[in-house]
């Protein structure tokens, strides 16, 4: 099994190298693959369900929390200046752990270290709301993730995961998002997989959801074992995808079908 597996892995890796990256000028957001009515939903704050989470986030931002009795606003002040462009640089290198952390993890480390509060569970309404409120401050800002040279080895790992074929269906992310993005998988448009809009409202979920949730859905779709929320592999994939989308404008909170 191990030997056969190693040989197959070598063969598959050889296959994966053929994947071609999308040139800068041809990069397209998932937005451009959507029908006009779904686009209109994203464009209009009053029609965009994601704005409900942003509003909740605003309340939470100002609410004192944890043993330190501090609100986010007590340290960061006016979010529209202190957090402008920040989400467009995440995941970012965290000196304390020597690893990249995504925006949700950064919010939770602020809770633990500065508010002395318990971490919020992944995909909880509160964590999504705070993340959406912070990410909203970067709407329109170009993605800059990956500029820090300390991130290079983690971006490389993310790219490896992106190219690796996996699951019972034996597909890699690149098979769809680099090689077949102008096609349809049954009823769904296959996009280029740029994470410009997260956290975003997905009509299928009837909820806001994180990029990790989206990645887990694609991984389960190819019948592979989804990584747990917060797993280093998921953060590395997020990091690779964000660096792959460099220069594209942030859209959070976006809407997707």
């Amino acid at each position, binding site marked *: 099994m191990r030997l056969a597996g190693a040989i197959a892995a070598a063969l598959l890796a050889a296959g994966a190298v053929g994947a071609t990256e999308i040139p800068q000028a041809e990069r397209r957001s998932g937005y451009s693959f959507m029908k006009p009515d779904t686009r209109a939903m994203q464009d209009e704050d009053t029609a965009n369900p994601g704005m409900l989470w942003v509003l909740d986030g605003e309340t939470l931002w100002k609410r004192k929390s944890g043993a330190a009795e501090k609100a986010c606003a007590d340290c960061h002040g006016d979010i529209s200046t202190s957090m402008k462009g920040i989400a467009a640089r995440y995941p970012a290198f965290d000196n304390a752990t020597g690893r990249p952390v995504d925006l949700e993890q950064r919010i939770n480390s602020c809770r633990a270290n500065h508010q002395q509060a318990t971490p919020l569970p992944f995909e909880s309404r509160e964590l999504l709301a705070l993340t959406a409120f912070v990410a909203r401050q970067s709407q329109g800002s170009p993605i800059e993730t990956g500029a820090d040279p300390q991130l290079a080895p983690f971006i490389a790992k993310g790219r490896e995961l992106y190219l690796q074929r*996996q699951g019972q269906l*034996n597909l890699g992310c690149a098979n769809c998002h680099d090689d077949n993005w102008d096609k349809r998988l049954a009823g769904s448009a296959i996009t280029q997989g740029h994470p410009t809009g997260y956290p975003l409202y997905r009509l299928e979920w009837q909820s806001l959801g994180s990029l990790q949730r989206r990645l887990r859905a694609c991984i389960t779709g190819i019948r592979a074992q989804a990584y747990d929320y917060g797993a280093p592999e998921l953060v590395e994939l997020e990091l690779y995808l964000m660096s792959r989308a460099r220069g594209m404008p942030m859209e959070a909170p976006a809407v997707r079908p």
Partner: protein
Amino acid sequence: MARLTYRMSGRFIAGLMLALPGLAAATELRFYAVDGDAIPQSLTGAAGDAARGRALVVERSSTCILCHSGPFPEQKFQGDLAPDLSGSGSRWSEGQLRLRLVDALRLNAETIMPSYYRVDGLQRVGTPWRDKPILSAEQIEDIVAYLVTLRE
């Protein structure tokens, strides 16, 4: 002269090579003989049922129409990652269609078409699907029986 090779479940091979009794096959794949680019003999020893095969192909969970389109007017959503299945039976023999379904990777190492009757050489398969082929031998025979009827 026809080249004849035999294949068996990767797990079975591993069991033999490593002599680990604990690795007994979770799913025993049946033996089959590959002759050139085809598997001439039925995996089950019996002919499949074309009507059941059609039902399987249009069923989303079989995954075919995620990528393929075909003569399925009742199916609103069909994929366009792969050739239209109309006329498959004119282009390929029964044995060629069978090998394509069983292990398309054998014919084209870069194909995105999954191997429907293979459990080895896969990475990180999710728990519900681990050590199981995507389709059973019976299901493959039903689909093959249907595909040969698609003539142009």
